[in-house]
C-alpha cells in the first residue's frame, strides 16, 4: 500500500472528522476532560496509520476511525467508572457505568444525528461570548479542525507556546464554568450564532487575506472555515439567513483565491486578475446560498458583503464592473454601522465612478482617523489617488508610509514595485 496515499486519505479524513469525534467524546467525558477526548482521537489516527500500512485502507475508513475511537472510549469509561475522572452523575451517563447498558448507551452517543448536534454544540461552546475571539479560533482550529499546535501557531504567525497558553485558558474556562456543548435555545440562537459566524469569518480571512502564511495552511483555513459554516447549514435550527449569507460570501471570495497571487507569490490586484481562473462552480454555489440568504427580514453585513463580492464575480471584466450597484451596497453597509474601513473601501468605488478628485475630497472627511492612520491600505489608497492626480511626490510618500505599516513581505514588495513605476 502506498504510504503517501494513506497519509493523504488520513489527513483529509482527519480534518473532516476529528472535530466531530472530539465533540462526541467531550460529551461523554465532559468538558473537564478535553485533553482526554483529544488523546483518544489522536490515538485513533495513529492506529489507523499503523494498521492501514499493513492491511490497506478499509472500505469505510471513516467508520473505521469512529469505531476505533468508540472502542477506546468504552475502554476508558470501563476503567474509570469508579474514579472521579469522569462525572457520571447525569442519568444518561450513569448507564455507561453498567455492563448491562454500556454498549447500547455508547452506541447512542455515536449515532449520526447526535454526532452532528455535538459538533455544533461544541462550536457554540468554543464561541462563548466570554471567550476572546483569538482564543475561540485557536481552540476551534485545534480541537474541531484537527490542527496541530504547530499548525495553529503558523496560522497566527505566533509561537507554539503562545498557542498552548491560549488553549489552556480556554480549557480552564470550560472546566470552571462547566460549559456544556449544546445548541442554544431558539431565543438565543441568533445572537450566539452571530459570535460563531464572526469567528468563522475571521478564520476565513486569516487564510484569505494574510499573505504571510504558507499556501497549504491558507488553503486549510479557508476550507475549514467553509466546512464549519456548512455544518451550521446542515441543521435546521441553525439555518439562519446570515449563515447562508456568510457561506455565499466565502464562496465568492474562495472562488478567486487562487488568482490573487502570481506563480512567484506576488499580489495581483482585482483589475489585473485572470478571470478565467476563477472557480465558476464555487461562484454558482455562492449564488445559491445568496438566494437562500434572502429569506426573512434579516439583512446583515454578510448579506451586503456577499452582494458586493457577487458583483465582482459577475463582471466579465474589470471595466464591466457595476460600480453603481456596488456603491449602493456600501451605502447600506455604512447605514447598518459606521466603520472607517468600509468607508475607505467605499472611497475606492468613488475613485472608479467619479475619479480621483472626488475620492480625495471624500477621504478628507476621515483625515486624522486613528485607526486609518495606522492602516496601510489607507495610505496605499491615498498614494493611488495622488498618482492619478499626477502629484507624484505625495504619491511616493504615501506608498512609503504604507510600506512602513504593513508586516507582510508580499505587500511590501507590491508597494515597492508601485513606487518604482511612479514617474519622475
Amino acid at each position: 500500500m502506498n504510504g503517501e496515499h494513506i497519509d493523504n486519505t488520513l489527513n483529509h479524513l482527519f480534518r473532516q472528522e476529528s472535530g466531530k469525534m472530539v465533540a462526541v467524546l467531550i460529551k461523554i467525558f465532559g468538558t473537564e476532560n478535553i485533553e482526554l477526548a483529544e488523546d483518544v482521537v489522536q490515538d485513533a489516527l495513529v492506529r489507523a496509520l499503523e494498521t492501514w500500512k499493513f492491511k490497506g485502507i478499509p472500505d469505510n475508513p471513516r467508520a473505521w476511525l469512529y469505531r476505533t475511537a468508540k472502542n477506546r472510549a468504552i475502554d476508558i469509561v470501563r476503567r474509570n467508572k469508579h474514579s472521579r475522572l469522569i462525572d457520571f452523575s447525569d442519568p444518561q451517563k450513569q448507564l455507561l457505568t453498567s455492563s448491562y447498558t454500556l454498549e447500547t448507551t455508547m452506541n447512542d452517543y455515536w449515532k449520526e444525528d447526535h454526532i452532528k448536534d455535538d459538533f455544533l454544540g461544541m462550536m457554540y461552546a468554543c464561541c462563548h461570548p466570554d471567550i476572546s475571539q483569538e482564543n475561540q479560533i485557536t481552540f476551534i482550529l485545534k480541537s474541531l479542525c484537527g490542527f496541530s499546535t504547530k499548525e495553529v501557531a503558523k496560522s497566527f504567525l505566533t509561537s507554539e507556546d503562545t498557542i498552548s497558553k491560549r488553549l489552556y485558558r480556554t480549557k480552564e474556562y470550560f472546566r470552571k464554568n462547566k460549559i456544556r456543548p449544546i445548541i442554544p435555545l431558539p431565543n438565543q440562537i441568533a445572537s450566539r450564532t452571530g459570535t460563531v459566524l464572526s469567528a468563522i469569518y475571521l478564520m476565513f480571512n486569516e487564510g484569505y487575506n494574510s499573505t504571510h502564511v504558507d499556501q497549504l495552511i491558507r488553503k486549510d483555513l479557508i476550507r475549514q472555515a467553509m466546512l464549519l459554516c456548512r455544518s451550521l447549514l446542515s441543521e435546521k435550527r441553525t439555518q439562519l439567513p446570515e449563515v447562508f449569507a456568510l457561506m455565499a460570501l466565502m464562496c465568492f471570495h474562495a472562488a478567486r483565491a487562487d488568482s490573487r497571487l502570481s506563480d512567484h507569490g506576488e499580489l495581483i490586484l482585482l483589475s489585473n486578475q485572470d478571470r478565467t481562473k476563477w472557480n465558476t462552480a464555487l461562484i454558482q454555489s455562492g449564488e445559491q446560498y445568496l438566494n437562500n440568504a434572502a429569506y426573512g427580514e434579516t439583512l446583515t453585513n454578510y448579506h451586503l458583503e456577499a452582494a458586493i463580492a457577487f458583483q465582482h464575480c459577475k463582471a466579465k471584466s474589470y471595466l464591466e464592473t457595476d460600480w453603481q450597484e456596488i456603491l449602493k451596497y456600501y451605502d447600506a453597509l455604512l447605514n447598518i454601522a459606521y466603520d472607517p474601513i468600509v468607508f475607505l473601501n467605499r472611497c475606492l468605488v468613488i475613485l472608479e465612478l467619479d475619479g480621483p478628485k472626488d475620492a480625495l475630497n471624500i477621504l478628507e472627511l476621515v483625515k486624522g482617523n486613528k485607526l486609518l492612520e495606522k492602516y496601510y491600505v489607507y495610505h496605499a489608497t491615498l498614494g493611488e489617488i495622488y498618482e492619478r492626480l499626477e502629484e507624484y511626490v505625495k504619491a511616493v510618500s504615501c506608498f512609503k508610509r504604507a510600506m512602513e505599516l504593513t508586516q507582510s513581505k508580499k505587500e511590501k514588495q507590491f508597494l515597492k514595485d508601485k513606487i518604482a513605476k511612479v514617474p519622475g
Partner: protein
Amino acid sequence: MKEFMFLFRGGDDIWNTKSPEEQQEHMQHWQQWIGEIAQKGKFVSGERLRSHGSTWIDGGAKIIDRPFTEGKELVGGYLRVKADSVEEAKEMAKGCPDLQWDCSGVEVREIWPEG
C-alpha cells in the same frame, strides 16, 4: 431511602438460545429499563456477569471450577437501586427484561443498612 439489590436468576441459558438480533433488542430493553430507573435518580450500580466462575466450598477448604448455583439458579447479574420500600423495589423489578424472557426469577433483597 433504602437500597435494594436485584439478583437476576437463570437468564443465561435463555440468552444462548436467542439470535444476535434478539439479543441486541434485549440489550436495548435493558437500556430502557435501567434508563428509566436512572431518570428517577434511583439507579446505583449494576453489572452483568460472565457465566463461568469458580467457588470456594467447605469453608474455604475446597475449590470447584464452576459457579455454586448453575442453570436456572445461576446468578446472571445484579442491579442496585434506591427505593423507599420493598414494595416499591418489587414494582421496579417487574420491568426487568429477563422476566420477559421468562427467566427463573428476580430476587429483590434489601441491602443491610450501613452504620
